[in-house]
């Protein structure tokens, strides 16, 4: 079951590379949160109940509901609906993404060890690379934020891979999530002036 969810997670990453609307990005972020919740429930069999409940609550409430809500609010306020400022055309972004997948699989095979599931490792590395790609190839600041959220999901996935051995690592990952949530809320959610694009684009 976990492998089904991980494959679906990888497919959402491909759609990140080919999507063009910010609202699609937000939906994908929400879907990734939901998938991470599913993966956590099926994977973490040895952690105690309170810890598992904390993780499920964080992925469901924070990643699936709160963050997408905040992001869509920012998008509504700024009036920017399309990712129309990319540094490279979408076709090449997709090619880079495929290259990223190949690299991550090769790395996963090199780094393979008996404690870590290599599919986790490959997909987490792929997630990391996709997040970085989103950050370096887009010009809108909101895409950079979404790229950062994807990188964070990668960290979460990494920590889940060894969650049964080191449950504390997941909690640290969650704290990072919440930190970013506050960052979004503080910087962009509250201080953004409606109908100005000043916060949505980085200066060259």
């Amino acid at each position, binding site marked *: 079951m976990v492998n089904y969810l991980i*494959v679906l997670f*990888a*497919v959402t990453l491909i759609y990140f590379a*080919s999507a063009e609307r910010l609202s699609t990005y937000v939906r994908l972020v929400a879907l990734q949160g939901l998938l991470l919740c599913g993966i956590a429930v099926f994977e973490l069999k040895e952690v105690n109940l309170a810890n598992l409940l904390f993780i499920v609550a964080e992925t469901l409430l924070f990643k699936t509901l709160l963050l997408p809500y905040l992001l869509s609010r920012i998008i509504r306020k700024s009036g920017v609906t399309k990712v129309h400022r990319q540094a490279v055309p979408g076709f090449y972004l997709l090619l880079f993404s495929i290259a990223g*997948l190949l690299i991550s*699989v090769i790395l996963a095979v090199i780094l393979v060890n008996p404690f870590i599931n290599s599919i986790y490792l490959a997909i987490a590395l792929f997630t990391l690379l996709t997040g970085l790609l989103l950050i370096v190839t887009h010009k809108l600041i909101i895409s950079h934020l979404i790229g950062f959220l994807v990188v964070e999901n990668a960290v979460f996935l990494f920590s889940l891979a060894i969650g049964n051995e080191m449950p504390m690592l997941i909690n640290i990952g969650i704290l990072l999530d919440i930190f970013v949530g506050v960052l979004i809320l503080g910087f962009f959610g509250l201080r953004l002036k409606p109908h100005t694009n000043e916060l949505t684009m980085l200066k060259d």
Partner: protein
Amino acid sequence: MMAGFILIAVAAFFFPGVILRTKSIASGRKGPGIFQPWKDIAVLFRKGSVFSDTTGLIFRIAPSVTLATVTVAMLLLPFAEQKAVLSFEGDFILFAYLLALGKFFTIIAALDTGSSFEGMGASREALFSMLVEPAFFILIATFAMFTGYTSFSVIFNHFFITGNDYVLIYSIIGAYLLVQIAMIENSRLPVDDPKTHLELTMIHEVMILDYSGFDKALIHMGTYLKFAIYGSLIYNLVVPAGWNVILQTGLFFAVQVLFAVVIGFTESFRARNKMNKNPKFILTLSSIALIAFMVILILTEKLA
């Protein structure tokens, strides 16, 4: 052995009609009957062909070559537990390149007319076919890796009995990708629109503008057969080969009808892609196929 061949030929009879019926029902029209496309073909067969002075031999033989390649490709597909008429290791490569050969002849025939519109259509068709090819090969390579065999007949026979828990993932991904590949290969929405009336926006239609009568009928037949071929591939992926033959035959036609209905609904409710978005759309399919391939590589521990 001929069962697969005959069933595909039979399915091709109602396939285009079902698409037309679905589209007419979805748009609230009465619409033509299921066999209308074949009645049109019968009319075309009774007509002669007109050839432009600028065209040469290539233009005249291309429709026959296209139909011939599609027919030979049909021989490579198995049905249920029976082997295909032609079956050998690596036959899926022949299958892909037979279809590509047919397409190649359509493309050079379009160039042969000397029309700039047809050249443009040929260029687009060549690009899209080139991009969709990796998706097909990666997908079939995934199945080959999954089952450990390299022939269509054996792959599909062993697909559901490998004992691998993840057969459902591959069945779903395979069916999804094959539907999309079939839509692109047969020039349907969202990549191409068979109903468009402007040469500038056409892809496949503009390439066959100069054909008339008998030759046009051959081209249409080839297209219908190609649909049924992809329907048969999808069927082989979703129905285990070991089931009762009568049940299988029923399911075969059910899958074909469902496939046609899906195409009809897609064409009714979906807008066509912008031309410059098509390469990205097609490459997405290859990426999804690649994910499936990578996962199977890791699961079967072939890389380690």
